[in-house]
């Protein structure tokens, strides 16, 4: 996830349509700021992760496997 292109409304609608989901344009416009912000945060989160940090073992199972 080194480079994430800034999403735009048409790209959002197309990506959703590929997954069988057809939203109104107003929905895509409304969710765009939150999506863009989350993508930036995820990029920052990934950049700050230690190189050797693995995913949480066992998915959700934390302490008992």
């Amino acid at each position, binding site marked *: 996830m080194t480079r994430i292109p800034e999403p735009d409304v048409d790209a959002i609608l197309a990506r959703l349509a590929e997954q069988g989901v*057809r939203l109104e344009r107003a929905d895509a416009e409304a*969710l765009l700021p939150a999506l863009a912000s989350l*993508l930036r945060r*995820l990029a920052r989160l990934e950049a700050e992760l230690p190189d050797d940090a693995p*995913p949480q073992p066992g998915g959700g199972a*934390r302490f008992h496997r």
Partner: protein
Amino acid sequence: MSDLEHLGAAELARRYRERALSPVEVVRALLERIGRLDPGLGAFVHVAAERALDDARHSEAAIAAGRPRGPLEGVPVALKDLLDAADMPTAAGSRVIGRLPERDAGVVAKLRAAGAVLLGKVGMHELAFGITGVNPHFPPCRNPWDRERVPGGSSSGSAVALAAGLVPLAIGTDTGGSIRIPASACGVVGLKPTFGAVGRSGVVPLSWSLDHVGPMARSVEDAAILMTAIAGHDRDDAWSAERAHEPAGRSIGAGVRGLRLGRLDAAAVGADDQVAAAFEESLRVLARLGAETVAVAAPALEPIYTANFTLTACEAASFHRRRLAERPADFGDDVRRNLAVGLLLPAAGVIAARRAQGVATAAWLRVLDDVDAILMPTLPRTAFRRDVRVSREPGEAWNRLVTPFNLSGLPALTLPCGFDRDGLPIGLQVAGRPFDEATVVRVAAAYEAATEWGARRPPSQA
């Protein structure tokens, strides 16, 4: 019985044993109260009056025969509307889930085995994907302390029903704070157990890896009683822990002398002045009771929130994608858009979130190497008005201090620790080590016993 509606589970059980009160009497009184007050509160979405009265008669007979099935015999409980109960509809606060289940959820089966009387289903934020409790598909669910404020969510109906004296116990679920947020906003007690401690079979998922089912009540003791009744292995939940569970209330009454409690800096984690002042005072109370409180630094909160939201959105989108494709107009705007976000995140980002989960869990466990429990405000501010549009703020602010314990899976409890100038409740959060609900309960019970916040009642409850 003038205050019957505010009796807790422990007190009801005691009065039942002494034949001072009967389950039928209690269930009738609560059904009457629900009929009278709930139209203005919107807590219940389904009232199982007939079955509840039948079950209360059964409980009454069991108690009379000296053979109660368990500690909840004859005690009314409300279920969040995403738990299956064989005789009630499950809608998960939505228009897209509509089922009349044939089987009880694992937790519901445990409740019935313990003798509980199920009063009905209580409302929630749509599909548990939100923290306000404002749901476009149901009549408004209102905060009993100020009906123009949100109750918090997603277990909104559970918290409202408790605060308003409609039921003594309720079940909630918590993926990003959904037990603790409404409990704090409505001035009741909510415990998010350790991940895996309470089974989730028969519960409509939001995020398989972050969902927790837990008890809500008006006192710490009652929450512990309910926790003990619902804890334990659930063979139909792949992530249920296979281990023996100590009673959550086993150290109630032990006090906090000798305990070392880590305190977060309330201002540094974004609490407003009134919340910070109430939190600081709660620290002084615990110190007077003999606890040693030491400053601890919180692992970075923003990546925790980001990871928790990312995992929630992606897992929820995976679960609901087909319904979203077929019936997009049947979702509320906020939920439809959040599910779409979950479909748009890159796989590498989701893996990064899962890696951040491992880092955060290890960091919180390191904090707990040095202290017995961690103290912090539950919410950085009290309930906001219903007409405030929730986007990043104040929505994220309400998630910030609760999501660490969804992502890490550590147990965390909220209880009232004060009121702001508008008379709105403030919550104190106590978090602990994995499967050490008993210490969390011990600390919370000691604080509760030394203060009177939990005894306050919302206004205008005739």
